[in-house]
């Protein structure tokens, strides 16, 4: 295993990592300038994971956040989340998620299942009730399905459309991105809740407020906020990297 790790850190990887971190920051700022409701600040990290491997990806993520943290300490607190994102990107790369083309119907399926589960998640949360002893009960599945049947059908259709038009042939990369986003949402929540009182100081705090108003606890509200915004963001990041690797000159790809 040590040999494998050593192999990941060739001179080219060591040169690639600073560039990847600079890409993270440059694109992260660009997205803010374009006023888009996503972060896209881990494209460089995913790129290193995809090209060099999981350990190089993890190092890139951790360093990116710690260095960015010299300007914005909030980011530094989540360095371990970035490391995990880079690591999963590396695993995805090893499985060929960034090289292979996905049949479009698989992409449709991925998109539909994702938006469906997101809707289910949000509805289950916003319909949860907490009694006086602080015990939270969630509504039953059948009850949810019968009450919100129309919403679910619309969700599946939207998901399928996202799969067909947005994921296109990058369904596998998008799927890995979704999984990464879910993991990131779960592991970042404790830090966000304990250190920062559950807020990010940005627009996504409205989501936290909504979940808090519906009676959810601090930790679960933060997790829910993450689950709403992170998977979509990481899906886009993985897709962009898939696109980058496909448009790369063949000479570079071979190395």
């Amino acid at each position: 295993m040590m040999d494998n790790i050593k192999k990941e850190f060739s001179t080219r990887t060591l040169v690639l990592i600073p560039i990847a971190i600079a890409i993270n920051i440059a694109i992260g700022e660009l997205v803010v300038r374009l006023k888009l409701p996503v972060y896209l600040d881990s494209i460089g990290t995913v790129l290193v994971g995809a090209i060099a491997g999981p350990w190089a990806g993890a190092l890139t993520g951790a360093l990116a956040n710690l260095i960015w943290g010299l300007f914005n300490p909030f980011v530094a607190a989540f360095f371990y989340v970035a490391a995990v994102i880079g690591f999963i990107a590396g695993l995805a790369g090893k499985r060929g998620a960034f090289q292979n083309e996905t049949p479009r119907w698989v992409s449709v399926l991925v998109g539909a299942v994702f938006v469906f589960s997101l809707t289910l998640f949000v509805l289950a949360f916003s319909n949860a009730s907490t009694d006086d002893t602080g015990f939270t009960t969630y509504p039953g599945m059948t009850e949810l399905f019968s009450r919100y049947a129309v919403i679910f059908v619309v969700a599946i259709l939207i998901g399928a459309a996202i799969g067909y038009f947005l994921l296109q042939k990058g369904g596998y990369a998008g799927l890995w991105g979704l999984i990464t986003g879910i993991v990131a949402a779960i592991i970042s929540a404790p830090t966000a809740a304990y250190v920062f009182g559950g807020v990010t100081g940005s627009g996504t705090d409205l989501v936290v407020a909504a979940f808090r108003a519906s009676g959810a606890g601090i930790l679960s509200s933060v997790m829910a906020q993450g689950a709403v915004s992170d998977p979509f963001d990481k899906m886009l990041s993985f897709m962009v990297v898939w696109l980058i690797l496909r448009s790369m000159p063949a000479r570079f790809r071979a190395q």
Partner: protein
Amino acid sequence: MNTFSMYVARESGLHKLHPLTKSLLTLLLLVAGLTLPGNWTGYILVLFIILPLALWGQVFRNFIRIVWGLSLPFILSVVIIQSLFWGKGTPIFEFWILAPKVEGALFAAISVGRIILVMAGFILFAMTTRPDTLMISLKQVGVPSSLAYIIVTTLQIIPRFQSKASTILDAQRSRGLETEGNLFVRSRAVVPIILPLVLGSLVEVEERAIAIEARGFNSKREETSLIEIPDTKTQFIVRRLFFMLMILSIAARIAWQLSN
């Protein structure tokens, strides 16, 4: 050279401290503030340790301005959300649908202490430590020089990438790319900007790799450094002390957690 850093050059005692002493102190403040039992540790550490240090480092005004600017959105957000949307609790007052809760306000106050601690600790370190001296001192304690290379290079190329991104944005705009308008229009601008930026920089990788290998990057000989970093016996002992205090505060937390 233009580097990505918040360093403010001053001739203060804090600036002259060994970078390792300062990084351990920062780490100690964060660990102690977040692990020590008790809700107000953050405020106490900021008030009695970080602020005096900022005065000593002659960066007080800038420091306050930056920390305040960074913390304000978090403070507003946490106070509004956690007091207004707390759920069940004792209301402070009720007006229309607004009913902030005592428990929520208390939680928000505790969180504000932690937020300010994290911001202030990091920023004070960043303002008083030159990134290159930090790297050299890390090398001296055995951090691989390739890691030091990554960090120093990153700090140097970030400003270049930021201006590169702006150049590409302008170039694509002049070719008619819409970057303003509704969400759909704006999101379509992302790929035509990202692709040239990333592909252009990947081409650079090979050139840089050859360049640093030609300059003996992989050499196994021991390296010497142009900059000498002064260290003292006292600081060495103080660093040991910081380290022990860090372990103590974690131990205190674990003991406190177990007894509850």
